[in-house]
């Protein structure tokens, strides 16, 4: 990874990843505030962000813990929210799979929405990049946001308890997630998956152990996958 071209790819990744700090900082702060409101100590909040490194899953876990869901359900639901990083891992494998094991382990820890989004665009645009160059770019793209994410969480945790109830922070989570949902509505199957999950979640709200979330999520995934199959088939006929 030490040769000159890898170095320049690291900095290219760094530049491409930098705008995402404007998402990571507010989102991290919000998590810190939300977690502190839920009664977590600063050490817990920072350990949470630094080791799990997945905002949406962290919010989900906290929300369910506050609703007194059983621990197994909390873990299963939060990991389900995080299943998309497995998809990122799968999609990056053809590009980075040949790197040494320790580098792949580091890359795994750093696989987040932002590093994936930057890297997959770059790797497809320049198919001739070598594996070390790709790894340098990938690490570069996530370097600006990792410290910002952890620091912002810490700041949020420090601020947290000083925020009055009239600020309606209970609604910070729905607003943040709804905002993230907009850009995900790329195709008709994505919209169908979201709508089916929404309707099922409202119908299944009284299912015990908060299993409604997993049932609704699974229903949405199946609906999206089926819609995709039907659309592709229809296109082939047309």
């Amino acid at each position: 990874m030490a040769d000159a071209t890898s170095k320049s790819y690291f900095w290219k990744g760094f530049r491409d990843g930098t705008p995402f700090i404007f998402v990571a900082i507010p989102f991290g702060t919000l998590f810190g505030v939300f977690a502190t409101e839920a009664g977590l100590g600063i050490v817990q909040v920072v350990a949470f962000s630094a080791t799990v490194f997945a905002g949406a899953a962290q919010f989900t876990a906290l929300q369910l813990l506050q609703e007194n869901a059983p621990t197994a359900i909390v873990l299963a639901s939060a990991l389900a929210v995080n299943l998309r990083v497995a998809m990122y891992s799968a999609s990056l494998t053809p590009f980075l799979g040949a790197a040494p094991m320790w580098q792949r382990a580091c890359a795994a820890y750093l696989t987040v929405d932002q590093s994936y989004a930057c890297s997959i665009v770059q790797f497809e645009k320049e198919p001739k990049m070598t594996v070390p160059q790709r790894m340098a770019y990938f690490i570069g793209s996530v370097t600006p946001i990792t410290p910002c994410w952890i620091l912002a969480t810490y700041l949020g945790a420090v601020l947290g308890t000083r925020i009055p109830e009239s600020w309606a922070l209970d609604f910070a989570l729905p607003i943040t997630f709804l905002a993230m949902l907009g850009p995900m509505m790329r195709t008709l199957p994505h919209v169908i998956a979201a709508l089916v999950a929404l309707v099922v979640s409202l119908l299944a709200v009284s299912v015990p152990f908060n299993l409604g979330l997993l049932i609704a999520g699974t229903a949405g995934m199946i609906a999206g996958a089926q819609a995709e199959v039907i659309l592709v088939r229809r296109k082939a006929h047309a």
Partner: protein
Amino acid sequence: MTQIDPTTMWTVIIGLAIGSFALRFVFIGFVGDRPMPPWLLRHLRYTAVAILPALIAPLVVWPSATEGQPDAARMAAAAVTLSVGVFTKNVLAAIFSGAATLYGLLYLLA
């Protein structure tokens, strides 16, 4: 809000840390260059887009802050956030317009 006990909290933090790493490592670490079945990839594509609405919908319709009573300000804020997000594809613009709607209506309706 109920207090979360520290043992449960640490169990969840450590469990999620290990679980999230496993999810990220499973393909890049173990699968290597072998191809994966298309049906699996097809379902994985829709996980985030299905789980997020399923998590939020009940919180929007029956907010905990109003003891489960549907609330006009929160419903309107949710609708504005989603619409701005869908049309602008800009996450921050959606968050700010949603928050502005929420505070505006909470102030007007109070």
